[in-house]
């Protein structure tokens, strides 16, 4: 099913934000919408969005490639994005990430064996006073987790695992 078939009212609402002759402005909102299923943007979604907004598929792809929160490849169900930028790094974020990766037996960029969690290293998330911190990007959206330790992170992952199992 195309996005237009799945979410007709919501798409109408998004398009209404912008002047009718500038509907291309809706591209980012529609790309987020496409990621609701599976957490990534498929080829078909790109073509679908392109035709809705009078763009070429190449133009849509260039948008996907430019912004770091758009993904066109499948990863874990939850992308756990740890900030290791300067503010967090001064508070030990690099060590936190290394310890977490060791516990999960993955390297940054890799996914846990069960396909649940992909660990990613990201740039500043505007929470420098609450380091170590990360955001979880999932098909449901993006959520911040601040002042974390390896233990509280592992507990959170356990909860996510339970949620995923229940959803199945």
């Amino acid at each position, binding site marked *: 099913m195309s996005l237009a078939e799945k979410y007709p009212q919501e798409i109408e609402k998004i398009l209404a934000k912008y002047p009718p002759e500038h509907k291309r402005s809706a591209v980012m909102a529609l790309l987020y919408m496409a990621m609701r299923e599976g957490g990534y943007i498929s080829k078909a979604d790109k073509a679908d969005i392109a035709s809705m907004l009078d763009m070429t598929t190449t133009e849509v792809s260039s948008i996907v490639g430019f*912004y770091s929160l758009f993904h066109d490849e499948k990863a874990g169900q939850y992308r756990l994005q740890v900030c290791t*930028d300067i*503010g967090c790094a001064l508070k030990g974020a690099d060590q936190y990430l290394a310890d977490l990766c060791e516990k999960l037996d993955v390297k940054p960029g890799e996914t846990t064996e069960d396909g649940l969690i992909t660990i990613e290293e990201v740039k500043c998330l505007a929470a*420098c006073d609450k380091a170590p911190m990360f955001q979880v990007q999932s098909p449901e959206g993006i959520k911040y987790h601040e002042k974390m330790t390896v233990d509280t992170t592992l507990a959170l992952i356990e909860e996510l695992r339970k949620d995923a199992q229940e959803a199945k």
Partner: protein
Amino acid sequence: MDYMLLRHRDINNINQIDTFLKEDGFEGFKKALKMETVDVTNEVKAAGLRGRGGAGFPAGVKWSFMDNNNWPHYVVANADESEPGTFKDREIMESNPFQFLEGIAIASYAVGANAAYVYLRGEFWEVAHFLDEKIEEMEKAGFLGENIQGSEYSLKIYTHLGAGAYICGEETALLESMEGKRGQPRVRPPFPPSEGLYNKPTVVNNVETLSSVPYIIKNGAEGYRKFGTEKSPGTKIFSLSGNVNNPGNYELPLGTTFRELIFTHGGGIPDGKSIKAIMPAGASSSLIVANDEALDTAMDYESVPNVGGDLGSASVIVVDDSVSLDWLITKTMDFFHHESCGKCTPCREGSYWMKKLTERIHSGEGTEKDVELLKDVAYQIQGKTLCALGEFSTMAVVTSIERFPEDFKI
């Protein structure tokens, strides 16, 4: 002092519309609606409010540049808060959202815009959804929509979510992004007040700037000028982070000293260490040597350059004496290399080489020539890029090497 911006710290539940209304909410907007639009702009001009996103450009002056021969007009709130070390706009939007929205409404009225957008960084996904609710509440209470408060003025506010790109904090890149393109800066001029969103006159203001406006209209320019200094009036939110006991946001009058922020409010340096350097404007900062002269310097737009820095967005990152700056600049260069949008060759290629060189020097495999080459690449970027990002990427590198040479001895 009562808070002007972080009012939620004085008043519980000010993010609820009933509480906000009880606490004089929207009084500034109601007053503005009875004024001539040009008088609203003039009041903000007289208050001397300067852009809080980093550039410090006078907000009222920006508004007065709007081209009145080209319509419609737009207002865009820059909520792309992405400078490493900056986390003030998020607190305002989460905890005192109506004051921010009121600021947008007043600015929109002043420049004759009937549509305004809030461009949030994609990571502020939860904040955007929260703001959507608040916008709806504001509309229900009769402060948005058609014929607001019985006037002839109509306004809609919309949120627009970015998707992870620091460059979109630069106002013309932000506008490109809003138009559904890659967020790359435009060649200026024309500036947004002549040709902005959809090539129409547009005011782009930072969240904190807009949130300062209701107070100015309600209490007048004179009321606002009771805080801060003559050339940098008002209060400012300082985002304090790094090696400090109590990191967080502190709203203080402009002109407060670094010492007061870091030691009185921030509780000083942890673990018995000493302060070594200050980055007053996030990752884009020069590294200021934290001696007594610097610590006693007033944090305002005029004074910080006297000790070799800029106030910028006032994201004060504290660096203690256990940190070697050859490491620190690998962090800033990793950031700028990742965030360079790729449009200008000096920034795109230069940030790549600077990242490589900083990593080589930090790994211990560098030579003295590498340090010289690193400086040389930085100098070649300066002044040769369309936007400030290229320039910013060089600041920490050059000032670390020049002011802390012992950290770069091979």
